[in-house]
C-alpha cells in the first residue's frame, strides 16, 4: 500500500466521523427522548460523507448530469414516498427503501466486477477476498431487492398475501442455491467471466422471489427486518470491495442490528425464524378474516351502555390491536382517552409486543394521535393491573388476548398474552366473527365477562366518545 495523500487521510477521518454518527443514530433510539436527535446525527454523518465523496473524488464532477438526474429522481421518490405514506403502510415503505438499497449494492458490486475485469490481463484472476466479497454483495443485494419487492406487493395487496407455494418449491429453491454456489465458485476460482456473473445476479433475483412468495403476508414484517439485515451485509461486502470503511461499518451495524431485531420479533411471537420462513403460517389479514369463529352466542352491548360503564369506572385499560390500525381509529381513541381522563377515570394502554403487524405498531399509531407515551404500558408492566381495572376495552385485538395461548396445541401456544380476562368487564370492538392473524377462535369472546360491540372500530369508538360526552 503506497503512502497516503493528505486528501486520503482526511477521507478516512470523514468516514470515521460519519460512522460515529451512524452508531449514535442507533444508540439514541434507546429512548424516545433522544431518538430524533440520533436520527438527525445519522443524517448529518450521511450528508458529510456524501458531500465529501462528491467534492473530492476524481472524475466525479464530470458525471454531474448522472448525479443530478439520478439523485434528483431518487430524492423526489424518497421524499414523496416518505412524506405521504400512511402510518399503516409503513412496513411496505420500509420494504421499498430497503429493496432500493439492496439493488444499489448489487449494482455497485456488478460495476466493480466489470471495471476490474476490464483492466485484467487474460487468464489472470482477481484476488480471492476481493472477488468473494463482490459475489456476496451481488447475491445478497439481489435477493434483498426482489425479496423486498415481493414483500411490498404482499402487504400492498398487489400480490396475493397468502403463502404461494410453487409446484416444486423445495426442489426449485435447492436447485437455485446449488447453481449459485457452483457459479460463484467457478467465477471466483476459475474464470472471472462477465456473462456468468450476470447469470449469477439473475439467479439471485429469482431466488429473492422464490424465497418470499411462500411466506404469508402477515409475516412480512419479520421478512422485511431480515432483508434489512441482508442489505446491511451486502453493503458491508461492497464496503470491503471498495475498501471504504464508511460502507463497511454502516453495513455491518445494520447487518447485526437487523439480525437481532428479527430474532426479537420472532421470539415475541414465540416462533422460530425457520418456522416463519418455511412453514407458510401467516395468511394475511383479510384472506381468512371472516368465517371462522364458531357458533357460540356472543353477548352484545350498545355503545351508550359501554360508554356509561367506562365513564363511571375508576380505571379503564385500552387494548389496541391490528383492527385499530386497519380502522385508523387512533384519533378517536385519543379523544376517548381525553374525555375519560377529564372525568377522572384513569386510562392506560396495554401494548402487547406483537400487537398489530409490525414491532411497535401500536406505539407509532398512538404517538401519531398524540397519546403521551407514558400512558402506554408494556405487557409485563400492565398485566398485574388488569385485576384493578373496571373495564378492559379491546379495540381490534385478538390473538394477543387469546387465552388459548395458555394451553397446549394451538398455533399460538406459549405466546405470552395480556390478562384481559382479569378485568371486571371486557368490551371488545370488532367487525364480526373474524379471527386474528393466527386464524383461530378466541374463547375470550364467549366469556361471560365479555360484551361485543360490533362494527368498524372507527365509528364504534366515535360512538363511545359521544356516549361518554352524554354520560
Amino acid at each position, binding site marked *: 500500500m503506497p503512502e497516503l495523500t493528505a486528501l486520503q487521510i482526511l477521507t478516512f477521518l470523514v468516514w470515521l466521523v*460519519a*460512522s460515529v454518527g451512524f*452508531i449514535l*443514530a442507533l*444508540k439514541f*433510539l*434507546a429512548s*424516545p427522548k433522544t431518538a*430524533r436527535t440520533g*436520527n*438527525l446525527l445519522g443524517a448529518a454523518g*450521511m450528508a458529510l460523507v456524501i458531500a465529501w*465523496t462528491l467534492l473530492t*473524488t476524481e*472524475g466525479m464532477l*464530470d*458525471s454531474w448530469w*448522472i*448525479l443530478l438526474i*439520478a*439523485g434528483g*429522481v*431518487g430524492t423526489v*421518490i*424518497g*421524499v414523496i*414516498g416518505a*412524506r405521504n*405514506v400512511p402510518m399503516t403502510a*409503513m*412496513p411496505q415503505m*420500509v420494504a*421499498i*427503501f*430497503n429493496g432500493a*438499497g439492496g439493488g*444499489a449494492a448489487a449494482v*455497485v458490486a456488478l460495476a466493480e466486477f*466489470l*471495471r476490474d475485469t476490464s*483492466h485484467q490481463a487474460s487468464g489472470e484472476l482477481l484476488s480471492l477476498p476481493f472477488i468473494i466479497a463482490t459475489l456476496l454483495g451481488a447475491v445478497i443485494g439481489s435477493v434483498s431487492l426482489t425479496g423486498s419487492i415481493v414483500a411490498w406487493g404482499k402487504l400492498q395487496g398487489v400480490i396475493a398475501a397468502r403463502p404461494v407455494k410453487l409446484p416444486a418449491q423445495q426442489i426449485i429453491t435447492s436447485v437455485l442455491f446449488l447453481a449459485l454456489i457452483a457459479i460463484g465458485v467457478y467465477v471466483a476460482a476459475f474464470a472471472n467471466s462477465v456473462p456468468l456473473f450476470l447469470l449469477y445476479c439473475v439467479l439471485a433475483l429469482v431466488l429473492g422471489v422464490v424465497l418470499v412468495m411462500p411466506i404469508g403476508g402477515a409475516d412480512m414484517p419479520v421478512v*422485511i427486518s431480515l432483508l*434489512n439485515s441482508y*442489505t*446491511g451485509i451486502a453493503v458491508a461486502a*461492497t464496503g470491503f470491495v*471498495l475498501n471504504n470503511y464508511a460502507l463497511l*461499518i*454502516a453495513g455491518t*451495524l*445494520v447487518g*447485526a442490528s437487523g439480525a*437481532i431485531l428479527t430474532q*426479537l420479533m420472532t421470539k415475541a411471537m414465540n416462533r422460530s425464524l425457520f418456522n416463519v420462513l418455511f412453514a407458510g403460517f401467516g395468511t394475511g389479514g383479510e384472506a381468512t378474516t371472516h368465517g371462522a369463529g364458531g357458533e357460540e352466542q356472543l353477548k352484545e352491548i350498545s355503545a351508550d351502555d359501554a360508554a356509561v360503564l367506562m365513564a363511571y369506572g375508576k380505571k379503564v385499560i385500552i387494548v389496541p390491536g391490528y383492527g385499530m390500525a386497519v380502522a385508523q381509529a387512533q384519533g378517536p381513541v385519543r379523544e376517548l382517552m381525553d374525555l375519560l381522563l377529564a372525568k377522572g377515570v384513569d386510562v392506560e394502554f396495554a401494548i402487547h409486543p406483537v400487537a398489530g403487524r*409490525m414491532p*411497535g405498531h401500536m406505539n407509532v399509531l398512538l404517538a401519531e394521535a398524540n397519546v*403521551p*407515551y*407514558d400512558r*402506554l404500558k408494556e405487557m409485563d408492566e400492565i398485566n398485574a393491573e388488569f385485576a384493578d381495572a373496571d373495564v378492559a376495552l379491546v379495540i381490534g385485538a385478538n390473538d394477543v388476548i387469546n387465552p388459548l395461548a395458555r394451553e397446549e396445541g394451538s398455533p399460538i401456544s406459549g405466546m405470552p398474552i395480556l390478562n384481559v380476562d382479569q378485568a371486571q368487564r371486557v368490551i371488545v370492538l370488532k367487525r364480526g366473527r373474524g379471527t386474528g392473524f393466527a386464524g383461530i377462535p378466541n374463547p375470550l369472546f364467549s366469556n361471560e365477562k365479555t360484551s361485543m360491540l360490533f362494527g368498524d372500530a372507527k365509528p364504534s369508538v366515535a360512538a363511545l366518545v359521544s356516549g361518554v360526552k352524554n354520560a
Partner: protein
Amino acid sequence: MDASSISPFALLAALFILVLAAFVGYEVVSKVPTMLHTPLMSGANAVHGVIVVGAMLVAAGAVSEGPLRIILALIGVTLGTVNVVGGFVVTDRMLEMFRKRPGDR
C-alpha cells in the same frame, strides 16, 4: 486506492473493523425498547443507504467509460438515493410523533 489490489494488511484491518462494528451494532440495538422497533427498522434501513456513496463512485468517470457504466451509475445512484433520503425522512416523521413529553396533550 485501487480496490482490486487491496493489501493483506488492509483486509485484516477491515476484518477487525467488521467484528468490532458487529459487536457495537448488537449491543446498541439490544437496548432499544419494543415501542421504538419500527423506527429502528427504518432508521437502520436509512443507515445502509450509505451505499449511495458506492454508487457515486461508480458514476465517477462513468461518462468516459461507455453507456453500460452510465446506465449502472444511473440505476445505482437512483436506488441509493431513494434508500437514503426516504429512509431518513420516514424515520424522522415517525420519531417526531414520539417527541411529545410524557403528560403533554
